[in-house]
C-alpha cells in the first residue's frame, strides 16, 4: 500500500525548511499526515502542507533524516502511505491560527480550506528569527490579518507568538483557535483561549511507527496520535498529565519533552 513516487518539486521555504511536492492521489484533508519513506534512511510522519495534487509536505531539519530531506533533489523517489489521522473541523466561522515554527505547515492548508468554506482567519506566526518564519505570504493571501513574532526580534513582535495570540484573543471574538507548535507554546495558547471560552484544537506530534493504531508508539494518555489525532480538542489534552511535559521515545520510555 506504499506508493513510490517522485518528488516533483522542491521549494526551499526557510534556511531550515523545505517543501517537497509529489503526486499521490488518495484524497486527503487538512490536518492529516502521511508516512514518507526516504529510501535507505527512515520513514517519518509528516503533515500534508498541500492536501491537493500535487500533495506536499514541509520538512524542518531536526535530526538526521529530516536534515537529509532538506538537500533531497527533485526527482528523488520516496515512498508515501496514508493519509492518516483526523482532520481539522472546518465549521468554525472566525478562526485564530497560531503557528509556532514549522507548525504552520499543517495550519496553512487548513486555513485555506476554511476560507474557501467561507470562514475568516486571523493568523499569528512565530519563529526563532525572521528568515525562519514559514508561509507568511501564503497566510497573508487568505487571512484578514497576519501578525508575526520572532524570538530575536528580527521581525514583528520581539518575543513569543503566544503574546500575539493572547492579544488577539483579547481584541476580537473567535469561534476557535487552531494551533501547532511546541507543546509548551500550545499550553499557553490554550490557557489564554480558555479565559475567553474559545475552544482550541491542537495538532500533536509523537513518535510514530505503524500509523495505524496498533504499535502503541504514539501513545498519548489514552489516545493514539495516529488514529485519534493528530488534531485534538484542548480539553482532552489538558486532561492528560503528560501533555506539555513528557513524550515517549522509540522504546516507549517516558522522556521529558
Amino acid at each position, binding site marked *: *500500500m*506504499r506508493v513510490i513516487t517522485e518528488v516533483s518539486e522542491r521549494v526551499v521555504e526557510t534556511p531550515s525548511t523545505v517543501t517537497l511536492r509529489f503526486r499521490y492521489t488518495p484524497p486527503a484533508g487538512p490536518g492529516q499526515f502521511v508516512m514518507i519513506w526516504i529510501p535507505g534512511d527512515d520513514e517519518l510522519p509528516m503533515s500534508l502542507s498541500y492536501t491537493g495534487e500535487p500533495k506536499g509536505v514541509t520538512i524542518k531539519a531536526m535530526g538526521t533524516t529530516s536534515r537529509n530531506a532538506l538537500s533531497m533533489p527533485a526527482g528523488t523517489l520516496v515512498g508515501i502511505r496514508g493519509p492518516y489521522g483526523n482532520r481539522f473541523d472546518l465549521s468554525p466561522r472566525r478562526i485564530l491560527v497560531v503557528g509556532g515554527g514549522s507548525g504552520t505547515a499543517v495550519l496553512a492548508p487548513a486555513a485555506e480550506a476554511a476560507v474557501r468554506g467561507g470562514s475568516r482567519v486571523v493568523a499569528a506566526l512565530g519563529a526563532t528569527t525572521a528568515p525562519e518564519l514559514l508561509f507568511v505570504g501564503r497566510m497573508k493571501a487568505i487571512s484578514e490579518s497576519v501578525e508575526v513574532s520572532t524570538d530575536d526580534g528580527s521581525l514583528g513582535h520581539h518575543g513569543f507568538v503566544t503574546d500575539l495570540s493572547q492579544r488577539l484573543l483579547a481584541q476580537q471574538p473567535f469561534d476557535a483557535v487552531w494551533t501547532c507548535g511546541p507543546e509548551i507554546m500550545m499550553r499557553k495558547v490554550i490557557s489564554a483561549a480558555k479565559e475567553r471560552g474559545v475552544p482550541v484544537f491542537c495538532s500533536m506530534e509523537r513518535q510514530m511507527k505503524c500509523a495505524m493504531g496498533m504499535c502503541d508508539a504514539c501513545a498519548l494518555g489514552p489516545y493514539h496520535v495516529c488514529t485519534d489525532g493528530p488534531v485534538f480538542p484542548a480539553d482532552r489534552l489538558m486532561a492528560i498529565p503528560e501533555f506539555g511535559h513528557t513524550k515517549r521515545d522509540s*522504546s516507549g520510555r517516558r522522556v521529558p519533552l
Partner: protein
Amino acid sequence: MPVADLRTTVAGLTFRNPLWLASGIWGESGNSLKGAWEAGAGGVVTKSIGSDPRMGYPNPTIETYEKWGMLNAMGLPNPGIDEYPQEIAIARAAGAAVIGSIFGADADEFAHLASKMAATGVLALELNLSCPHAKGLGSEIGQDPDQVREVVSAVKRAVQIPVIAKITPNHYDVASLAQAAESAGADAISAINTVRALAIDVQLRRPVLANGLGGLSGPAIKPVGLACVWQIYDRVNIPIIGVGGIESADDVIEYVLAGARAVELGTAVAFRGIGIFSGLAKELSQRLDSLKVHRLEELVGAAHSPVTPE
C-alpha cells in the same frame, strides 16, 4: 439477547471472555492496556519486555497487504523492565487482567525478567520464544526444544504465577516445541507468533522494512496458526491459546475447535479498530447461540473427534 457463556479458564485463571489482546499491539503503555481492557478484551498481554530499553528498528517497520496480511519488523522496542511497572500499575488500577510478556537472550535473563514482571502483579507470564526477526532472541531460542526446556524451567523456578510459552510457527515440528515447554512445567502454550516473511520494493530494489526480514500476521496466517494449534493439541495436555489472523466469531470458534481455550487478537486491531473486542464478543455469543452451544468451552478440541451424521 445472546446468552452463550464466553468465560474461559486457562491455567486456573478465569477470563470474562476468550478474546485477549495479543502482545505487541497497544501494549507498550499502561493507558493502552487499560483502553483495550475497557474496550472489552478478556485479557491483555503486554508488549514483550526486555532487560533494557530498546528502540527497535528504524522505520519502515510495517507493510500491509490489503486487509489480509501485515508484515512487521518492529525489533522488540520496549521501555525495559525497570520502567515498565508504572505502566502495568495503570492497567491493573483499571481492573485489567494483565499477562506480562517478556523476551530474553537466555534462561537466566528470562528468569530475571520473570521475577521482576511477576512482582508487578500480572496474572500470568507469556514467554516470547518466537519473534521471527530479532537476532539472538525470540525464535532463535524458541526453535530449539532444549533451549525452550531450559528457559521454561528457569522461569518456573523463579515465579509462582502461570507461565505461557509462545511458540514459533517457523518450525518443522511445532508440537515438539510445545512438548518441551510442557515437560519443563509450562502452564499453557500460545501459538503462533508471526511467520517469517519479506517484502521488496520493485522500484527501489530494496526490502521495504528497514530490517529486511519481518513477520507476517493477519488473516493470511490463520490457516497456519490453526495447523499449529491442531498439532499441539494432539501432543500436549496443557491449555492452548490460539493466535493468528483472528477477526470473526467463526475464526475464534475454528481455533477453539482446533484446541484453543482462548485466543489473542493482533492485526485485527489495526484493520478493524479496538471496537473489535466488544463487537466480536457479541458476535461470538450470537454465533454460539445459533449453533446451540451454551458454553464456548464445550467446543475446545471438538474437531479432533468429529461426529459423522448417520
